[in-house]
């Protein structure tokens, strides 16, 4: 099993979710995060003084899935999240040793 983690632009969440659901992935966990990267921040003026916003809002998606799904998921995320404008984000994959469904105690791929 693998954990696919994606950092995307907030307004692409619906598209990514739809792409994943189409793929048969119907569970994920979403976190509001802030990103620092190439996109850079922006400078704002408040009462005559400037200030930089270095961190821009992003959405993090975590999906645990069977190995065979990983490439499909990465693809689907990319499809849904891509705008071509700097700051689209990243997807990375990390290994998962095991997973348990709390409600039933099912473990392994059954728990996904």
């Amino acid at each position, binding site marked *: 099993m693998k954990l696919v983690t994606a950092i995307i632009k907030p*307004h692409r969440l619906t598209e990514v979710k739809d792409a994943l659901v189409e793929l048969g992935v119907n569970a994920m966990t*979403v976190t509001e*995060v*802030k990103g620092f990267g190439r996109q850079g921040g922006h400078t*704002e*003026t408040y009462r005559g003084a400037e200030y930089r*916003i270095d961190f821009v*809002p992003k*959405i993090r998606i975590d999906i645990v899935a069977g190995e065979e799904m990983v490439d499909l998921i990465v693809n689907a995320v990319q499809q849904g999240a891509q705008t071509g404008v700097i700051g689209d984000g990243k997807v990375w994959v990390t290994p998962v040793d095991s997973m348990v469904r709390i409600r039933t105690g099912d473990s392994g791929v059954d728990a996904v």
Partner: protein
Amino acid sequence: MVGSAASRFQRPFVASASRLTDNPPTSVSGPSTRRRRGRLALAVLSVAAVSALWASPAAAQSDLPDGVASSVILDNLWVFIAGVLVFFMQAGFALVEAGLTRAKNVANIMMKNLMDMSAGVLAFALFGFGIAFTGGEQLGGWFGWGGFFMSGFDDAIPAEGGLSTATTFFFQAAFAATAATIVSGAMAERTKFKSYFVYSFVITALIYPIVLRWTWGGGWLAQLDTPFSDFAGSTIVHATGGWAAMMGALILGPRIGKYADDGTPRAIPGHSIPFVVLGAMILFIGWFGFNPGSELAADEFVMQIAVRTLLAGCAGAVVAMLAVWLLDGKPDVSMAANGLLAGLVAITAPVGAVTSPVSILIGMVAGVLVVFSVRFFDRLRIDDPVGAISVHGVCGTWGTLSIGLFARFDDAFLGREKAGLFYGGGFSQMSTQLTMVIVHFIFVVVTSGILFMAIKNTIGLRVTREEEVAGLDTEEHGSPGYGPDLVPATAGI
């Protein structure tokens, strides 16, 4: 020709005279002969007398005889205090609109309310007031010309009593700001600030004053055989705002995401219901200046008007809540707040003419109307985040027409008792009311439509897609409405 204007705040010479001599009115036999001290009985207005009054500022500046001073001062003071309450409504509008829209646009909507008040008052002082009241009558009472740039603002109270120009301006300026501010709600979350600034200036300087002239300014509608009655402005103020809001929302188009591709309306929840309810409560409070102050004098009718206002507003809130409960299974809070306002808007026109129980009825109807109207415009894909069109346009119209049905007392505009259909008054009042409602609708729709189209084709009316998505606060004003410590991340999931 300043003096020839037969305007709302000038007291008919005869009435003043009788009061100055401290004689009780000669024939008093019930409500049918109610003498309204402040409100102009336009039909009996002696234009010559009024001219004289305006032509002799020196006399007007003399001190009032002390014997009458107190009641004249009280008239002015009360109308001024009522004006303060009406200005307080600006805070109410700002909060209702802010609460029903998203956090990313909250500073923008507050700014718009601040600015249509500030710029609106200046526009009205420089131009609108002259067109509405002090300017000489043009085109048979369609608008006024002259009296611009605060002429008369530092004059004393007229020698024979009544309101000073300062008092009248103060009260009317508060109303003008109200008319303009209604529009901002319907056009929220997508309008360029610059464009908003321009059109709220034009509405306050020109469109609204012309409507004023027709009616309270003693223009053509006040000069009909069966004169038009709109005591405190269901049509004159609220529907002007409401219909202009409709044109604005229509020309602007809906917010991104408001309608699915198949046209199904989607909810875009407002970010703060407590702001909405607090705003509605402040508006409720302000209405006790709006309606009772429109008596334009401190007399016993003030309190009756207040009670009717109270009853209609409360009935609107309760009934709108029940209607939503029946329709959707749960009582929506923001619609209950809209219901309160709907009842208040509806009673604004008939408040001087109807009985207390009828006030409740008028409020109840408004409470139902607003619920269905909000759905109706939503289905039409006219995206009005705050329900301004329904509350102010639709319920304002209902209130204006209700006079034709229910008028029982003479509100000093009607000139007779029992003018309503249900009191045997026949159709004449109803047809005058209908005339007004229709002419007014056409006028506002056309003029505001031209205005918005002109802006759209010059400086542009709508922000870019990127700005709308990011939020107007940072894009238009340079910093977010809520600090990063209050709203850690942005756009909700």
